[in-house]
């Protein structure tokens, strides 16, 4: 056996639920327990999740003694990997829970088992160590260039999915506006944002939603061509500005110089 510095992402094939994995835990009285689990879910580079559907020994054990050990197989070649885990926390709301729940429900709906196959929680484990078991198979490792389309969905698409889901839930215009700005903050890091409606007849822009500013500014107006907002509106182009303070200092220096020279 060889300890390796394997990255969880490299083992994406083990997280597809194609071959069941085994999970061992240990009660506080020292009795080991081992169970098959249908899928180990990839959460992020340091965490995996396991579905909690029924109250069972695993569920009780990790709350007494948080350590666990998983053996999983790569379905392409049946290479084996051992993961040493520590139970971190349980999630019963949020994107991870919802996506695991939907996956279970989708399978359950085919077998008329939607009531039985209900996800109670996503149990999240920290991955302490990953070991590739040498001496398990004679087959060579699969080519590392292969990439899963599901585990490695572009993060922009993940954001797009979340945004679509949230906007679809909005019942009124105000909710659409607020959710849009909130999502720009959460998903893209735009902590300050506004939506302005163009009043073309009067050459003005009217603020109808605002997020992150001390004063919400809804109802305030700016003329088309006035200031940054007005100029962007007139140009009908997006504008990305960095080093604003440097730019402003430079502009002020030019202005002061021009004034001094008359």
């Amino acid at each position, binding site marked *: 056996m060889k300890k390796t510095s394997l990255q969880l992402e490299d083992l994406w094939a083990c997280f597809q639920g194609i071959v069941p994995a085994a999970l*061992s835990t240990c009660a506080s009285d020292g009795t080991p327990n081992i169970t098959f689990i249908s899928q180990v879910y990839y959460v992020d580079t340091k965490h995996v999740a396991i579905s909690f559907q029924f109250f069972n020994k695993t569920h009780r054990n990790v709350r007494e003694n948080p350590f666990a050990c998983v053996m999983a197989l790569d379905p392409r070649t049946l290479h084996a990997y051992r993961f040493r885990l520590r139970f971190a926390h349980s999630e019963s709301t949020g994107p991870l829970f919802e996506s695991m729940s939907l996956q279970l429900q989708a399978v359950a709906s085919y077998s008329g088992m939607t009531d039985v196959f209900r996800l109670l929680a996503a149990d999240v484990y920290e991955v302490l160590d990953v070991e590739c078991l040498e001496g398990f198979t*004679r087959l060579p490792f699969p080519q590392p260039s292969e990439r899963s389309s599901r585990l490695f969905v572009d993060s922009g698409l993940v954001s797009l999915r979340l945004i679509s889901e949230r906007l679809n839930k909005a019942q009124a215009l105000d909710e659409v506006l607020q959710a849009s700005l909130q999502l720009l903050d959460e998903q893209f890091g735009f902590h300050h944002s506004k939506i302005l409606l163009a009043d073309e007849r009067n050459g003005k822009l009217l603020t109808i939603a605002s997020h992150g500013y001390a004063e919400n500014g809804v109802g305030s107006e700016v003329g088309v061509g006035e200031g940054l907002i007005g100029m962007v509106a007139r140009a009908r182009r997006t504008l990305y500005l960095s080093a604003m303070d440097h730019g402003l200092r430079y502009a002020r220096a030019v202005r002061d110089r021009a004034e001094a020279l008359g």
Partner: protein
Amino acid sequence: MIPDSIVALLQTGISVMVGTRDASLMPECTRAWGIHIAADRRTVTIFLSKAIAGKTIENLPENGKIAVTCTRPTDHITCQLKGQVRGTRPVTSVDRDASKRWHREFMAELTAIGVPSSLGEAWIAEPTVAVEMTVTDVFDQTPGPGAGKKIGQ
């Protein structure tokens, strides 16, 4: 005594996984290359290879606590045996034959669920250590709400 239904299950091409723990209660798991049930129906022998089960083999003399879960791939019928290790020894030719029989049955199960036979046949299922355990508890682990129920005596 292990109930009849479980005896029957253990004689088919089941996937055999083994759970142990060390002195600090750190769990370990590994795959066994077959299982054999003795005529007394209380003793089972599992076959391990040092190459992949080093830590498990270290844990056994330390505390002897063991859990073995067996599942049949084609119908998910699963049981868990818990008990105490009686001893470990190098495998004999009889053990190797038992392991080979199990491997053939297991490969047939895997083929039946669509796993290409070339994958399972490439496994280095060559046990080096036989572990004899006394089974104290048997649990039904077939997936579903009844999983975890103790069965038999």
